[in-house]
C-alpha cells in the first residue's frame, strides 16, 4: 500500500512511482553477472592470509623461508618485507601486523601462489613465534582497568578507551525530579555479522608502467583509492578502482580492510595479478561486524505521558581497532536524543577496545541497538502510566518543522501516519494486552534515521554526468555504486523522468573510478537522495541543451516545447516535432559542433556536527513496525507470526524497490532479534559458519506487510528520502515488546534465543513465588 500525504497536481510523473524491475535483473537470473570471484585473467595468482590464532600476543619472529621455497609460491609477505603505514580512524590499524596481534583473525602474513592448494600449503609452512599476552573481552573490564593495554603504541590513549563522546541538552536532573514516572534498565546487543552471500573478493593487477587496477566490491571507491595510496606509498593518480557487481554488502564492504592492502602488496611482490577470495570462515572472523552496544537508559514522563527526559550511559564494544565502526555510537546518540520529542537529554558514552574482531558500518549503524532500548522504554513507560503505548508515541511523535536537541531539522515527517497505519492493520487496540492466555503478544517500535545524506566528511556530495549520443541513447555516469539495492535503476528512473525518455533509453555507468565523477560512497541511506539529486540536475542540464537546439530548429521558444518519449514537440502543434537522436546529431554535425553532455555535483545543505550539534542530514526517514509473536513457555521458542511495517520514504521512486529494501532490512532485523549472534568463547568465534550463525531462512521470516508513506520531502529528488537502512531498525525492539506483551517478561538483550527466553520466564516465575511468600522449590 502506498499512502501519499500531499500530491503536487502539476507534476505528472511517467516513470517515477512505477513498479519497475531492476535493469540488471535479467543478467542475474541467468547467471551472466560477473562478480569479483568470477573475474579471470591470464597469469592470475591465488592469495591467502595467515591469521593470528591468539586474541592478544606479541610477535617475536616470523620465519617464511620454507614457504618461499615451496614450488608454485610467487610471493610471501609479512610486516618485515613490505612497505606499509598505519591507517584507519585514529591510525590504529596496519594491514600486516608488525609486532602485535590483537584478536583471533588479525593478519600476520600472506602468500600468492599458482593455485589455492599451494597457497594454503605455503601458509602452513610459515612459522610465527608468539608471546601470548593476557587478553580482555568484556568491554566493562576494558573500561575499568588499564591492563592489558591493547594499543600501547598509541601514546595519547588513556587505557583501552578509544573515544569518549558526551552530550547534554536541557536539565535532565530537574526534569527527573518532576517526572511522574521514570523507567530504567540495561539493554544490550550481541556482535553480529552482515553476512552477505558473496564473501569479500579482491583482484589487484599492476601494469608494466606501474599503474594499479583493483577490482573490489567496496562501496566507497574514492576513499578506498586514497587509503590504498596513503598506506602503501602509491601514487593515487595511478590507481583505478573497478567495482564489479556486488553480491550483497549491508555495510560489510563499505571500508577498506587489511585484505585489500594485502592483495595489492602480493601483486606488487609477485609482479602478477593476484586474486584473494575470503572463505566463509574468514568472512566471519576477519571482516567487519556489528558492534555490541550496552545501554543503561532512564526515560521519564509526566502524568499525561509527555516525555520529559532521557539519560543514558553507553558503552560500545568495537573490538580491536576503530575502523568507522567506532562512529556507530554517534548514530545511537541521535536516536536517544531525537526519537520522539525529548526536551532534556544526557548521554555519556565510551567506545572501548577489546581483543575481538572489530566493528564496522553495518546497516542501521548503531540504530537497532539504541532503538532496542528507547522503544522498549516507551512501552514500559506507557504501561506504568496506564496509557496505550501507541497513544504515548503519538503524543510525543516528531513532526515536520521540529528541530531536535542535536539540531536535526525535520522537514518532512510521516511518523504519526506510520504509527496509525500499523496500529490499525495489526488490530492493536483490540488485541494488544489481550492475547497472553494464548501465549501471544503484540509489540511496536518506531524509527528515525538519516534520509538525506549524513555529513561525516567535509563533503557529502556526489557527481553525475548525463550524455546523449547520436542514437538518442542517454547515459548516466554516476558516482554512486550499485550493491544490489537497486540504485542503478532508481537513478535511471530519475534521469528518464527528467529527460522525458522511456527507462530503456537510459544506460548507467557506475563502476570505474577513471570514468565516474567523485562520490563519498554508499552509506547512511544517502544514494537515492544525494546521487538522485545530482543525476536529476545533470539530466535537466542535458535536456536544456537539447531544448535549446530544438527551439532553433522548430522556431518556437523553449517554454512552448514539451518532451514526450524522447521527442520534442511544440505545445498545441504536436506535428512540429524532432527527436533527441536528431537533435544530438544536429549538435554534433554542425559547425563548431558540441556533444550533448552535462555534469552536476550535489552536496546537501547540511552541517558537520560540532559538539554533537548540527543538521547532519537534509532529510530524516521515519517508520513504525508492529510485531506479533507466539512464545512457547515450555521451551522459550519465539515464533514471529506477523510483522506490519509502515515507512515514510518521502516519495517511492520505485515502490517495488522500496519494498525490497524494507522487507530485506526487516528480515535482517528479525535475524538480529531472534537468532543472529557471533558466539565468542575466549576471544574465538566459536562456529564461524552460516548454519550456526542463525541467518533467517524462508521458514523464519513471515510475510512482511509493507506500507509506503509518501511525505514528499522538499529537498529530495521528486520528494524521495533514503530507505536503505530503515527496515532493520525496529524489529529487535518491536519483537521484544511483543514478547513482553505475551509473557510479562522484559527482554534486556538480543538475540532472544529460546534458552534465554526460557531462562527469563523461569526467573520471573521464581520471583513471583518469592513475592507471594511461598517456599521456593529447588
Amino acid at each position, binding site marked *: 500500500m502506498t499512502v501519499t500525504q500531499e500530491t503536487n497536481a502539476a507534476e505528472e510523473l511517467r516513470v517515477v512511482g512505477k*513498479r519497475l*524491475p*531492476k535493469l*540488471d*535483473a*535479467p*543478467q*542475474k*537470473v*541467468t*547467471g*551472466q*553477472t*560477473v*562478480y569479483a*570471484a*568470477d573475474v*579471470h585473467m591470464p597469469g592470475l595468482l591465488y592469495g591467502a592470509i595467515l591469521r593470528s590464532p591468539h586474541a592478544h600476543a606479541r610477535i617475536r619472529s616470523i620465519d617464511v623461508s620454507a614457504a618461499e621455497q615451496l614450488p608454485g609460491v610467487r610471493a610471501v609477505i609479512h610486516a618485515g618485507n613490505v612497505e606499509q603505514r598505519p591507517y584507519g580512524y585514529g591510525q590504529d590499524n596496519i594491514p600486516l601486523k608488525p609486532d602485535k596481534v590483537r584478536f583471533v583473525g588479525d593478519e600476520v602474513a600472506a602468500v600468492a601462489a599458482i593455485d589455492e592448494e599451494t597457497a594454503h600449503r605455503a601458509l602452513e609452512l610459515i612459522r610465527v613465534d608468539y608471546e601470548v599476552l593476557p587478553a580482555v573481552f568484556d568491554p566493562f573490564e576494558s573500561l575499568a582497568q588499564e591492563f592489558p593495554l591493547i594499543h600501547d603504541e598509541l601514546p595519547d590513549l588513556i587505557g583501552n578507551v578509544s573515544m569518549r563522546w558526551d552530550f547534554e541538552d536541557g536539565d535532565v536532573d530537574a526534569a527527573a525530579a518532576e517526572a511522574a514516572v521514570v523507567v530504567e534498565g540495561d539493554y544490550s546487543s550481541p556482535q553480529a555479522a*552482515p*553476512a*552477505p*552471500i*558473496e*564473501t569479500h573478493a579482491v583482484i589487484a593487477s599492476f601494469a608494466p608502467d606501474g599503474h594499479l587496477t583493483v577490482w573490489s566490491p567496496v562501496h566507497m571507491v574514492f576513499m578506498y583509492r586514497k587509503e590504498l595510496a596513503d598506506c602503501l606509498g602509491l601514487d593515487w593518480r595511478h590507481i583505478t578502482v573497478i567495482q564489479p*557487481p*556486488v*553480491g*550483497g*554488502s*549491508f555495510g560489510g564492504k563499505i571500508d577498506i580492510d587489511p585484505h585489500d592492502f594485502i592483495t595489492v602488496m602480493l601483486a606488487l611482490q609477485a609482479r602478477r595479478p593476484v586474486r584473494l577470495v575470503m*572463505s*566463509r570462515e574468514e568472512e566471519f572472523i576477519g571482516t567487519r561486524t556489528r558492534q555490541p552496544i550496552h545501554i543503561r537508559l532512564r526515560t521519564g514522563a509526566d502524568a499525561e505521558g509527555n516525555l520529559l527526559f532521557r539519560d543514558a550511559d553507553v558503552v560500545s564494544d568495537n573490538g580491536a581497532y576503530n575502523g568507522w565502526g567506532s562512529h556507530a555510537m554517534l548514530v545511537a546518540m541521535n536516536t536517544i536524543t531525537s526519537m520522539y520529542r525529548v526536551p532534556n537529554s544526557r548521554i555519556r558514552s565510551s567506545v572501548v577496545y577489546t581483543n575481538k574482531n572489530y566493528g564496522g558500518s553495518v546497516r542501521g549503524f548503531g540504530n537497532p541497538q539504541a532503538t532496542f532500548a528507547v522503544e522498549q522504554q516507551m512501552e514500559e513507560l506507557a504501561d506504568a502510566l496506564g496509557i496505550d503505548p501507541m497513544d504515548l508515541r503519538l503524543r510525543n511523535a516528531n513532526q515536520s518543522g521540529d528541530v531536535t536537541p542535536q539540531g536535526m531539522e525535520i522537514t518532512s515527517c510521516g511518523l504519526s501516519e506510520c504509527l496509525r497505519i500499523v496500529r490499525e492493520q495489526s488490530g492493536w487496540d483490540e488485541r494488544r494486552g489481550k492475547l497472553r492466555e494464548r501465549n501471544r503478544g503484540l509489540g511496536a517500535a518506531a524509527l528515525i534515521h538519516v534520509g538525506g545524506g549524513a555529513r561525516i566528511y567535509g563533503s557529502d556530495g556526489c557527481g553525475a554526468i548525463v550524455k546523449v549520443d547520436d542514437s538518442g541513447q542517454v547515459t548516466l555516469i554516476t558516482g554512486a555504486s550499485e*550493491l*544490489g*539495492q*537497486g540504485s542503478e535503476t532508481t537513478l535511471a528512473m530519475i534521469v528518464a523522468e527528467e529527460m522525458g525518455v522511456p527507462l530503456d533509453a537510459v544506460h548507467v555507468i557506475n563502476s570505474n573510478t577513471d570514468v565516474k565523477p567523485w562520490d563519498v560512497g554508499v552509506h547512511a541511506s544517502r544514494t537515492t537522495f544525494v546521487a538522485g539529486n545530482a543525476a536529476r540536475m545533470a539530466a535537466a542540464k542535458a535536456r536544456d541543451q537539447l531544448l535549446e537546439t530544438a527551439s532553433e530548429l522548430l522556431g518556437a521558444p523553449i517554454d512552448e516545447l514539451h518532451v514526450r518519449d524522447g521527442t520534442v514537440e511544440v505545445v498545441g502543434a504536436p506535428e512540429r516535432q524532432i527527436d533527441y537522436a536528431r537533435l544530438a546529431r544536429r549538435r554534433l554535425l554542425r559547425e563548431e559542433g558540441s556533444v550533448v553532455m552535462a555534469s552536476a555535483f550535489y552536496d546537501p545543505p547540511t552541517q558537520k556536527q560540532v559538539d554533537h550539534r548540527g543538521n547532519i542530514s537534509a532529510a530524516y526517514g521515519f517508520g513504525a513496525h508492529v510485531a506479533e509473536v507466539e512464545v512457547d513457555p515450555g521451551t522459550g521458542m519465539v515464533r514471529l507470526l506477523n510483522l506490519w511495517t509502515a515507512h515514510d520514504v518521502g516519495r517511492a521512486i520505485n515502490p*517495488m*524497490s522500496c*519494498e*525490497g529494501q524494507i*522487507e*530485506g*532490512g*526487516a*528480515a*535482517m532485523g528479525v535475524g538480529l532479534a531472534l537468532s543472529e549472534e557471533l558466539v565468542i568463547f575466549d576471544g574465538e568465534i566459536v562456529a564461524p*559458519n*552460516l*548454519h550456526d550463525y542463525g*541467518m533467517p*531462512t*524462508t*521458514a523464519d*521470516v513471515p*510475510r*512482511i506487510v509493507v506500507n509506503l508513506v509518501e511525505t514528499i520531502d522538499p529537498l529530495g529528488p521528486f520528494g524521495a528520502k533514503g530507505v536503505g537502512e530503515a527496515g532493520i531498525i525496529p524489529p529487535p525492539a518491536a519483537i521484544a515488546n511483543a514478547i513482553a506483551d505475551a509473557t510479562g517478561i522484559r527482554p534486556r538483550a538480543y538475540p532472544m534465543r529460546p534458552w534465554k527466553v526460557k531462562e527469563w520466564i523461569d526467573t520471573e516465575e521464581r520471583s513471583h513465588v518469592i513475592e507471594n511468600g511461598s517456599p521456593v522449590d529447588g
Partner: protein
Amino acid sequence: MRVELSVNGDLYRRESEPDLTLLALLRDVLELTGTKWGCLTGDCGACTVLVDGEPIVSCLQLARQVEGREVTTVEGLAGNGALDSLQAAFVSNGAAQCGFCTPGMIVSAEALLRARPSPSEAEIREALSGNLCRCTGYNKIIDAVLEAAGSRGAAA
C-alpha cells in the same frame, strides 16, 4: 582420473583430480560461473544445481560422483536466449537484488515446480529453506515462484 558428464545438454570429458568438487568443475574447469559459491559447507544453497532433475548443493558433491549423469545449472534454464518463466517472474517481481543467491534459488524453485507444478506457499518455503537470501526477506522470491507456477499452469 577422467570424468564424463552432461552439463546443460552438452557432453564433457575432462581430466580431474579425485577430490575435485562438482562446483569447482563447473566454475573453474568448464567456466560456468553462474553457479555461485557462498560457503563450501552446504549451508547457503548458492551452488545448487540439478543432477538428473534433483537439486543438490554442488559444493558437497565430487565431480566423479556425477559421472555419466545429467547436470543442469542456471545457464541451462533459459532457452534460445529468452528467459524461462521462472526467471522472468524473478525479474518482474523484484526477487533478485544483489543476485548472488539467485542462481541457486531459481534452480531449487525449478526442481520444486517440476515435482509439484502448483505448490502452496508453505511448500515453497519448505523447498527453498536451504537457500539463504540476505537481500529480499523472501517475500518477493515466494511471489515469483507462485507467479511462475501460475503462468506454467495456464500455459499447460
